[in-house]
């Protein structure tokens, strides 16, 4: 089993985690055209290489950031979300 290092719970089996996709800015739906909103809804970078994603430890409901390589399946870095989100995001 692959091990993921959770910033809160330490090294755990990767099956305890859920991947929620790339970290992106949440746009304001009121300021977007339909087309831009559709883009935000459906399009995906699907990067072959290093990605920065939201992950959640299901058992403790703890959300954090993972940097990993989608070609080699290596986890490069895991850290709490407040390292990139300095202020609360309202939406």
């Amino acid at each position: 089993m692959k091990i993921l290092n959770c910033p809160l719970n330490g090294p755990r089996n990767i099956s305890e985690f859920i991947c929620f996709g790339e970290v992106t800015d949440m746009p304001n739906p009121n300021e977007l055209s339909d087309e831009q909103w559709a883009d935000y809804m459906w399009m995906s970078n699907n990067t072959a290489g290093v990605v920065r994603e939201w992950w959640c430890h299901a058992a403790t409901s703890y959300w954090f950031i993972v940097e990993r390589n989608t070609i080699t399946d290596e986890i490069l870095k895991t850290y709490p979300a407040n390292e990139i989100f300095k202020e609360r995001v309202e939406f």
Partner: protein
Amino acid sequence: MPLGLLKYGFASKYPARRDIPAPKDLNKSYDVVIIGAGGHGLSTAYHLARYHGITNVAVLDKGYIGGGNTARNTAVVRSNYISPEAVAFYKASVELFKNLANELGYNQMYSQRGQLTLAHSDASVRTFTLRAEVNKHLGVRSEMVDRKQIREIVPCLNMGKNMRFPIQAGLWHRDGGTARHDSIAWGYAMRAAQMGVEIHQRTEVTGVNINAGKVTAIETNRGTIQCNHAIQAVAGMSSVVAKMAGIQLPIRSYPLQAMVTQPVKPFLDPLVSSAGLHAYVSQTARGEIVIGGGSDPYELYSTRSTLDLKESLIAHTLELFPFFAELKLLRQWAGITDMTPDYSPIMGESPVKNYWLDAGWGTWGFKATPISGKCMAETIAQEKTAAMIQPFHLDRFKTFKLSNEAGATAASH
């Protein structure tokens, strides 16, 4: 006798059959460049040459013919989808499969033995009933069967009432079947090559040149070639290649794993699939049991298998067929699947003129190999998306006209 056979084998009167001619240099230009020599790319090439007289075609692959998902799939061929557009499309593919060995003069080992999908919950029974009705309406043979009928169709299935998720009913799809996945790639390749199509293996596309919104040339590791049309049919690499043409797609690439057991005597005629358990099995003509299931849990371009997925897949399969515990696994593997949000493909026009898409085939594209090649060839020849594949246009994501096949695809392929 063995000596006679040797003499026969080496006699110049009986040369070995070459499926495709020996490799040669790339030309400076082609009418059509097809990126990806999987089943879809080769089927498109064949249909262009055979039915539209377009033979100045190059099919490029970074690896070898049919070495992508065409080589890795579990070869379920069926048409019991849920949306009318998908049922009509896959039905047309099943029709083409029926005559494919004759058309290509290449054995496809197509065998229409029926597919049984099991429902273990009330929700599944409801959606299966809807699917059966939609299918019947469009001339596809599907019907609901109860536990007694299931026992008759597959006597060796575990019908125990104290299973964790007992079987409640099934969707019996007589038109379901299976074919030989390598044969389809090689059959189309051989016949396309005989009509003048060039197939270049170990030729990786590295860039797409665009001028005034129109594709003009394709860059490869063996040089740049001009083209009037280009089409990408690269499955798991769809997003990577589309980006070379500046196109963004609603696709995410996930590994999908499968395995086969050692061969045993024939005992399982139909294909059996379970929506609730995320597992499906069939027995090949050689006697091996093919086992497939759900996708990996996160996006990845690595085809390395994982023990945890294989373990849970085996556990689910043993619920259905406990005696499989006696069998040994022979091979196991993974392929990279190009998943779309609605589990329908993305076909036809792209934002770049004369650059055509055949993508988003995810876990379900093998069965579409004949029909997608036919429709893509028609699309390129007429420079207009063929009517049958209009519903699978990339623009459906702008207009929110999705073609949802998640329920009819997820674990049944």
